[in-house]
């Protein structure tokens, strides 16, 4: 697999059964995302955006078709082995942050590192570094309830990058945030993509958030209806202005 096909969905169909009836969420979908890309998935509710994230992240499996990430067929990994694969390759950022309220920011970031073979000192060092990247070293000992929404999402991003995954999957990462906090999060995702080369797949309803991505993919009723490159320089210049 070349750099041009880092994430690939081939003829992927996903159905859910609701009230005894099959609901086709993705219908023979083909999608390719290169390594280091930053793609925004947009579309109305029920168009299949989050389902794509779940399939790429190995949280769900398709009814038919293949999902491949970094030359690994995710849809072919045994259910039992999927958690270990996720731990190595994918970092998740959720709309509602999904931090564990009983743990501090540092402990939340440490959580995925427990699954790595690193020593305790190395795990701590990486968690410290991840928090430093998101600018929250001084909040390491705070619990989620002691942080603002924007800070919570930054901790979630630190947790997502702590294990140095290939792909960051963000499901409406700014959905629960005010504009300023949302901008901070988007800027952070930009940096992860630009400076650290992370491949980012982001679902959003917010055009301003999508404007940060390199590509904007539009879905409707389980089909890809638009795939456009995004001129980020225009957005950046607007921001500078």
């Amino acid at each position, binding site marked *: 697999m070349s750099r041009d096909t880092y994430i690939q969905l081939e003829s992927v169909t996903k159905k859910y059964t609701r009230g005894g009836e099959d609901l086709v969420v993705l219908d023979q979908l083909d999608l390719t995302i290169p390594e280091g890309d930053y793609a925004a998935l947009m579309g109305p509710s029920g168009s299949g955006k989050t389902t794509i994230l779940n399939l790429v992240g190995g949280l769900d499996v398709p009814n038919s078709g293949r999902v491949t990430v970094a030359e690994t067929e995710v849809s072919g990994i045994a259910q039992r082995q999927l958690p270990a694969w996720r731990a190595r390759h994918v970092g998740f950022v959720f709309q509602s942050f999904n931090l564990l309220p009983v743990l501090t920011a540092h402990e939340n970031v440490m959580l995925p590192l427990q699954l790595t073979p690193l020593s305790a000192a190395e795990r701590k060092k990486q968690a410290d570094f991840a928090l430093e*990247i998101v600018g929250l070293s001084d909040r390491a000992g705070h619990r989620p309830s002691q942080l603002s929404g924007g800070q919570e999402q930054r901790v979630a991003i630190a947790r997502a*990058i702590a294990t140095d995954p290939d792909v960051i999957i963000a499901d409406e990462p700014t959905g629960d945030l005010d504009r300023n906090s949302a901008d901070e999060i988007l800027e952070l995702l930009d940096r992860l993509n630009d400076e650290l080369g992370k491949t980012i797949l982001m679902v959003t309803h917010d055009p301003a958030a999508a404007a940060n991505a390199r590509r904007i993919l539009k879905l409707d009723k389980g089909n890809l209806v638009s795939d456009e490159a995004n001129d980020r320089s225009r957005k950046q210049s607007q921001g500078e202005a």
Partner: protein
Amino acid sequence: MIAAASSLKGRRKLSFPLRLAFRHIFANKTRNGLTILAITIAVFLLCFLLAVVRGIDAGVRSASSTRLVTQSAVSLFVSLPMSYRPKIDAQDGVAIASEFQWFGGYYQDPSNFFPQFAVNKDRFVDMYVNDFEIIEGPNGITGPGAREAVKKAFATEKRAAIIGIGLRDEEKYDFKIGDTVPIIPAIYQRADGGAWEFVVVGVFRPLKARIPDRIMYFRSDYLNDSIEVGEAFGEVSAGVYYVNIDNSNQSEVIATEIDQEFLNGPQRTQTVTEAAFASFFVSAIGNLPLFLGTVGGAVLFSIFFSVVNAMLIAGRQRLNEAGILQSLGFPPITSTFLLIFEGLAVALIGGAFGLALAIGTQDLVVLNFGDSIRNYEIDPGLMGLAIGTSAVLGITAGLCAGIPFLRYRPTEALRSIG
């Protein structure tokens, strides 16, 4: 950016998930506190009731295999004539027999009750050679010579009494050798309306669980002679006879022969082994061990459901967390394990408190209810049972709450409200 996983340490650490489980315990102080309290009470009751049951069982088990008890065939409360003893003695295989008459008085106040028995002055000490150790006799004599000295004093002093060590050592009694102990009668009233007076000539330590350490034996002839000369009211009788036999294998035959002897006497008799007599005495107030065991089991059973319910609530609240952990790469069983650990920790904390309460109140129970609750002891076996039961309770409750996590996909778990 972030260094790749390098220095391999091999195994995954358990400390972090355990820390997470502990955080949950302390994050839900009210719920877990009440659960711990419920388990504390349940384990305390379990220990208390089982200690009572074990005490009763120990009494029955410690009965001598070479001793029979002859009582009235009508009822335990019907006394046998004094004339029966020589005839019992004459039976083949009988070593020695003595009357045992319940006296039923108290010292100073009814709350100071302890058992008193009128026994044969020449036979009692020899009959109980294996049942208690005489530790102090007249003139402060102790050691091997004490038994003979006490036997002699008991045969000589008509008001002589031999007491258990508890009546000597407990502050509210504090009976010493040579003391005159006044006992206020409940059955055998004295003509002068006063108390009976007994002189302590010996102190013993029980060697068998069925013999309490707060008990007094005195001479039956003191009681009967007083009645005969009009100094006291009551019936001159023997109560029951305790009969030592030579060979335990002959107990059924000898019992039958004794009962045959009195088939046409003024009182028909029923002779049983001492163990059967002890069991009968216990069952006279109903099947106490079964009753107490049932109560304890019911308490534990209801607490079990309470703990399971608390853990199920915890499980429902933890479903979103299970989804988060799965999305981070933890296998589904991690959340199940966390709930099992949480259930185990809560149950063990409650169990430890309950056990500590049972141990802490042991002396209090013995002091206040020692006469009614015999051989009460929270022994190591009971401690192990309490902790083991708590552990099983916690693990089972954790499993009930945690097993459903295994069937949830991460996407389903993440959709739940935490």
